[in-house]
């Protein structure tokens, strides 16, 4: 096959060829970047959170009745709820908390060691550390791994209204920020004495993994109106049955409650990335449309070509070219156009990546994805040109004599 001849033949229809090349380049740019977006999102959703994602069931609820303004009443209902939920077969542990991991908003406080009050000026992440109000069962319910000391116990819940310093449990990265490699047990911070350190969990996915600062305090019963979430640890095989019973169980204790949602920790993670997933899906949808349009263009391009080149192809056939040769010729010509399109596409891929990065976070393009996208374009293009190519190869040699 003579590339020079091919090139000359393409130059005869600069406009349509140019348009198709531009289209191919843009399609490739979109295809590669959409795939990057989709893979990025998939990576986020399947990240390790340090939690037992599939075995944690969460129920978010809110009282609807004014009776709950009496906090003693509120507490007695919550205590009954916990007992009843614990009695469900398959439930290993039940706890209450004011906020969940994997969230950007929530209660937070600054923290520093009392001997080192300037600490939170040098590390800005120390100015806003997640402050989790809970009770002693949260470690079991969430599956925390204790690295040092212990988790909160019943005695850490002080008398309501007490001004006494509290005991707190902190995350591993917070310990490292405050005390480096030293032990944190018994240290006194502005928020109380540290009694334990747990292995890091993803508290706020938008922060770096070594800035997952959080502290746990046994005060949810004192400020029971903040206890919006029941957290249950469930036997893997019993999830479905427990899930279907939890709402009824607490409504049977007291019916005047709104139950917003019942969800697993994995669903909570998915929901956190719902918009990222939505955007990735929208981009993939656009890719589908783009491929469709580009396939139409490839088809129209070849078709146009056939109608214009009937005479030349007839002459070729008359001079001895076989059907197979003509078929190969038309396809090669298209592949040549695709190759130029994909070369130009390289630039578009990077350009589009940089442009999109102004608005959303996006990984850099990688060669495997690029090759994959090139493959998809070649295949869809070839499928689209197959029919016109076959039609071209069917041009009888006699056309040559007709049109000379």
């Amino acid at each position, binding site marked *: 096959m003579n590339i020079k001849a091919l090139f000359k033949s393409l130059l005869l229809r600069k406009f349509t060829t140019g348009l198709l090349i531009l289209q191919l380049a843009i399609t490739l740019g979109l295809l590669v970047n959409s795939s990057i977006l989709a893979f990025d999102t998939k990576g986020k959703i399947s990240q390790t959170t340090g939690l037992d994602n599939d075995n944690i069931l969460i129920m978010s609820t809110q009282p609807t009745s004014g009776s709950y303004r009496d906090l003693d009443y509120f507490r007695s209902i919550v205590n009954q709820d916990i007992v009843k939920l614990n009695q469900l077969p398959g439930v290993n542990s039940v706890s209450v908390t004011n906020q969940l991991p994997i969230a950007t908003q929530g209660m937070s406080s600054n923290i520093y060691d009392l001997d080192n009050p300037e600490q939170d000026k040098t590390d800005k992440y120390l100015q806003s550390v997640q402050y989790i109000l809970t009770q002693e069962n949260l470690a079991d319910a969430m599956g925390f791994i204790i690295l040092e000391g212990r988790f909160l116990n019943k005695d850490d819940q002080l008398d309501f209204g007490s001004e006494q310093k509290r005991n707190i449990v902190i995350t591993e990265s917070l310990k490292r920020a405050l005390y480096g490699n030293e032990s944190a047990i018994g240290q006194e911070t502005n928020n109380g004495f540290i009694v334990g350190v747990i292995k890091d969990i993803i508290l706020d996915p938008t922060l770096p993994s070594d800035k997952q600062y959080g502290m746990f305090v046994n005060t949810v019963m004192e400020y029971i109106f903040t206890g919006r979430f029941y957290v249950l640890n469930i036997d893997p095989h019993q999830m479905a049955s427990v899930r279907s019973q939890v709402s009824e169980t607490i409504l049977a204790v007291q019916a005047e409650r709104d139950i917003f949602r019942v969800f697993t920790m994995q669903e909570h993670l998915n929901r956190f990335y719902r918009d990222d997933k939505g955007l990735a899906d929208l981009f993939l949808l656009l890719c589908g449309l783009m491929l469709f349009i580009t396939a139409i*263009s490839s088809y129209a391009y070849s078709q146009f070509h056939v109608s214009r080149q009937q005479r030349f192809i007839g002459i070729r056939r008359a001079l001895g070219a076989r059907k197979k040769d003509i078929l190969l010729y038309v396809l090669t010509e298209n592949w040549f156009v695709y190759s130029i399109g994909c070369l130009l596409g390289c630039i578009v891929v990077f350009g589009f990546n940089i442009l*999109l990065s102004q608005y959303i976070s996006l990984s850099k393009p990688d060669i495997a994805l690029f090759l994959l996208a090139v493959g998809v374009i070649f295949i869809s293009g070839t499928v689209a040109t197959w029919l016109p190519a076959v039609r071209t190869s069917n041009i009888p040699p006699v056309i040559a004599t007709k049109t000379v």
Partner: protein
Amino acid sequence: MLSYNVKLALQSFKRAPSLYFLVLLTLSIGVGLLCANLALVSSMAGDPIPEKSDRLFHVSMNTWPTDKPAAEPFHILRYREAMKISESDIPKHSAVFYASGVYARDSQSISLKRFDSSVRATTPGFFALTKAPFAYGNGFAKSSGMEVVIGDQLNQKIFAGANSVGKTLELDGELLTITGVLKPWYLRPLFYHATEGRAFNLTDDIYAPLETAIDLGWSIHARTSSAVSYKGVQFTRDRDVFYLQAWVELEGRAQQQAFQNYLDNYSQTLKDAGEHPLNILNELRDVNAWLSELKIVDQKVLAFTLASVLFLCVCVFNASSLLLSRFHSAKFEVGLRRAIGASNKNIFNQGLTESVLLGLMAGFLSVLLSWLFLKLSITFLPDLANIAVLDPKLLLLGMLLALVTSVSSALYPLYRANRYTISAELK
């Protein structure tokens, strides 16, 4: 001549229906998708209250009592600053409020069903400042008293849309009387509370007097910052708890300057008393400046809009190459018409008529498709549900865009068609 051209165009459509259908489809998908995105962007970047957006100012002050946080003005204020703003007679109107939530039911109803309702606990100036539209009754006159104004949606839910002024609601166990009911009220974005990702929320269900809400201990459902611990909103009046937002309506530069001085003087008195360790930094921003400061336009939608612009380009390229092949195959006809006397201009006009007609059809189809894409976008990005509206302005833009793309994709093919030599084509 026009009717003749239209007739010819229709004949041409009939002769190659599948090709024209593809052109139509391509253009309308491209325009429809872009329009759907522009609808989202224009809702997000729109001016929610154009008649007075340059006179309404959000107040930011940095009265944090220690020098710990970065020295930037806070969008939330303490009760004492909020009261200082409220009592000033410089602004025409002022509103100081926080967001809360309660469960509501008609106290006379036999049903115990209660509705989750968002609450704006505010000073009475709110209604005049935001031009809240009343269907029945009016706003409350004082910051205290067991009275509320309710929004249309809640009124629909509890009273089936009837005039409920004078009725009593049970809100978290307390009885409050309705003094006014609002008409359906849309603010896109919700300028008065655009922080904490609420810019695209609906207007509130219940508007309650600020002091009443504080006394009843209705919890704060938005960002709070405090330098001290406190047990509930009822204990916040004399503490360093920052949770109130303030808006003022100021007419003209002079008033704006006067109010700025008023705030700065207040901060100076705090400083003199040793209660204001940070530099004095009080800022007034009008609605649009405040919204752009908050960068509420969703970056994801912007990214997708960018992609849909590229997509529209591809669609135009595609339509252009399709039309080129169409004009090419019709060149015998063109040659014939030229031979029997039609001028190049006639041929051009005829082609133009064809593409305008095509553009109009694509316009209608794209309006339909943009509605569909809008629905699709909000299934993928559900947070945007409240702003996904196609207003007439955008429908017009869609039509116009379809027309422009259709004509522009036909330009080169038309130019080519005009250059065919008559003799060659007739041979």
